[in-house]
């Protein structure tokens, strides 16, 4: 009986099943780095009800060299807000689709830099925060390139890679009495 288990045909079938399983494996692109920086306001003292300009820069670098399958979706999400209005800024994102396989694709916030104006609250210690999150995706199978033309984007299935949230950059603000 044991010999029959290792019949060459059985091995052939098992190898085929393994090959089929392997063909469905998806390798998403990877995130090489993320970056968030508060340019202004700089740490220091400010007056109550003073208008300050929050200027932040955000970017993430992706590597699609070994990604399977195409196209890839590269997402950068950023936040720029003062601690007295943590929900005020919400989030912005920039999504980039590409068929390109490249070791360094840098996606920036748009606009770059991000600029918001705020009015300082009453006296106290506050901070200004910049955050960047990057998420890579690969198509779950190859869609295109033509010919024939790939199917419409609606309904395509994507596989998410490992998201990366960089360390936030923070400046300290003191609103004096």
């Amino acid at each position, binding site marked *: 009986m044991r010999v029959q288990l290792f*019949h060459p045909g059985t091995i*052939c079938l098992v190898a085929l099943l393994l090959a089929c399983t392997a063909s469905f494996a998806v390798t998403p692109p990877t995130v090489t780095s993320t970056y968030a920086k508060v340019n202004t306001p700089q740490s220091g003292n400010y007056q109550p009800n003073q208008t300050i300009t929050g200027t932040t820069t955000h970017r993430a670098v992706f590597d699609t060299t070994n990604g399977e399958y195409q196209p890839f979706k590269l997402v950068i999400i950023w936040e720029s807000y003062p601690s007295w209005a943590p929900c005020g800024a919400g989030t912005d994102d920039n999504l980039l689709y590409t068929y390109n396989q490249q070791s360094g694709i840098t996606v920036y916030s748009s606009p770059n830099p991000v600029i918001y104006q705020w009015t300082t609250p009453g006296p106290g210690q506050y901070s200004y925060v910049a955050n960047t999150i990057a998420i890579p995706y690969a198509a779950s199978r190859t869609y295109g390139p*033509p010919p024939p033309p790939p199917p419409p984007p*609606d309904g395509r299935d994507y596989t998410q890679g490992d998201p990366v949230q960089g360390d936030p950059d923070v400046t300290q603000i003191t609103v004096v009495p």
Partner: protein
Amino acid sequence: MVVRLLSLAAPVWGIVLGTVACPSCPAQPPAAPAPTAEAPAKTTPPPAAYTVSFRIIKIDVAEGLDRREFADLPDSAFFITPESGDQFYDRVQLRQVFGEAIRPGLVATVGPVYSVTVPPRAEPVAIRGVLMDGKTEWSVSLAVEPRSDDGMKVDLRSVWLTKDLLAFETNPDPGKCEMYVGWPMPMWAGSGFSTNRPDREVGKNFERGYCVLVLVEPAVM
């Protein structure tokens, strides 16, 4: 007994399904049509040079409309493949395909065609431009590497220094994109959304969209 039946049936499965190389499953490569003496196979020589063209299409919301009405657009809405090389050159059709056809109220601005002609396997050739401020520069470097005997399947090697133009750029080591000559494709497409930005209405807003179409053709001049 079941195992025995399975093992006996396995060679049949191997024949029905098999593409796996093993002693009991000999590889069966597809038979290639052999040229006959009467009709020798004609091979088309590969292009001696390629013209690589690209154009940028930007999509925005028509003036006066609320960006929240477009918050439900799929983020891939602008990742559209033109139907043909002719459509790549048709500004009116592209304006329709990337604007009103996606949703009334979207306005597509179709940029000019930038082209460069390169011999196969040459070093990348750069196209440079400036933004509306007259100062900020961008550049795209392009090269073509044939991947088939007839030269109609190629790898487009490219470098995109478009940080201020499209909010992305690549490193100077050229990337690779598989293309077919004569078939335009969206090499890059982007979109952006926001929620609760201080300078917008509360709620999710559609912010921007764009698509970079690329076309590789045999050089004719």
